[in-house]
């Protein structure tokens, strides 16, 4: 369920489901879709890492990684409530709808942040905990508070926050950081700009109204299309690298190569179709496929390990 549809469902719920509505508001505050991406990529890295993790430790780690990601989301919504009100995509979030008071969102995010980092450290290991703390701090301070409203490079540099979960998952399994986990970080890092810029092409008026300097607003849509194509090509190449240097095998190579080729093909279509509904359709197609691509390559890592193909 999307944030918007969840919010509408909560709005239209009867009094008997009011409790569920309140809980749903807090769930929406944690950005469940971002949280699911963090959980999934951390799980994939945990599975692909050498050695084995006890299932109880693995589940525990995933719970606190999810909590940490949700905490960062709540703090982001607390800080960005003023601009969220101005954009159609975010206007139905719990704070702009006055469903959750800002001070409650702040307290919720702080408690979850401190709790998740502490529990991950005590129950799993302190390397994973430190990486989770870095992720939350980076997302809240570097991306949300510093970059987002100041530079069109906001999601290029800020995208690192969303790239840390595989490194956390790897650290859960091995207790450390390795080249393989850094490669998985790089894949998500390079995937983030074309993913968000495809969305920004369609939603540029929203960002303009809110004063967020996304690339299409500041540098224009044509320049954004060029950047999307360049990043897509680099990402497609980096996407296959884990099969040579890292945890991926032949199946991963096939999935990432095929996925990367389709990704670049769709980015090329975005580059070529610059006017009207066709341009919007091309950008939406790239945005939708980019999510599928990321889930696909990380699912390939899990499938390889599960079937013993590595």
């Amino acid at each position: 369920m999307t944030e918007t549809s969840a919010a509408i469902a909560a709005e239209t719920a009867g009094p008997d489901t009011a409790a569920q509505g309140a809980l749903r508001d807090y769930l929406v505050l944690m950005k469940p879709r971002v949280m699911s991406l963090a959980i999934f990529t951390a799980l994939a890295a945990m599975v692909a890492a050498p050695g084995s993790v006890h299932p109880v430790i693995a589940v525990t780690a995933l719970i606190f990684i999810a909590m940490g990601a949700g905490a960062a989301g709540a703090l982001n919504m607390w800080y960005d409530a003023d601009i969220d009100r101005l954009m159609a995509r975010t206007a139905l979030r719990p704070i702009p709808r006055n469903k959750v008071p800002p001070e409650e969102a702040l307290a919720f995010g702080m408690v979850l942040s401190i709790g998740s980092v502490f529990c991950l450290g005590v129950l799993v290991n302190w390397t994973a905990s430190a990486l989770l703390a870095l992720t939350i701090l980076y997302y809240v301070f570097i991306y949300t508070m510093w970059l987002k409203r100041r530079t069109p490079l906001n999601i290029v540099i800020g995208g690192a926050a969303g790239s840390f979960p595989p490194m956390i998952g790897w650290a859960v399994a091995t207790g450390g950081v390795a080249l393989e986990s850094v490669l998985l970080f790089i894949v998500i890092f390079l995937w983030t700009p074309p993913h968000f810029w495809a969305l920004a092409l369609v939603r540029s008026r929203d960002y303009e109204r809110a004063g967020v300097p996304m690339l299409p607003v500041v540098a224009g849509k044509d320049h954004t299309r060029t950047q999307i194509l360049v990043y897509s090509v680099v990402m497609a190449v980096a996407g296959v690298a884990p099969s040579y240097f890292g945890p991926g095998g032949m199946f991963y190579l096939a999935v990432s190569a095929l996925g990367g080729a389709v990704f670049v093909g769709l980015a090329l279509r975005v580059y070529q179709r610059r006017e009207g509904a066709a341009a919007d359709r091309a950008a939406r197609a790239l945005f939708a496929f980019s999510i599928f691509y990321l889930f696909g390559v990380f699912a390939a890592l899990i499938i390889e390990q599960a079937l013993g193909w590595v």
Partner: protein
Amino acid sequence: MMATPDAERPLVLTEEEKRRQRIRSLAIAFALAALVVIFFLVTIVRLSGNVMNRPI
């Protein structure tokens, strides 16, 4: 120090505020219970590994 009019008035929660408070209390209780279970399970897992590997 002079007390403000708000400070003199007793705090009376509205029905909506009471409902939110009740839901929040239940959610916190549930989260604490879940934490107790998680800490117990992880302790058992870590302890059993160390017992098996202890020097004899």
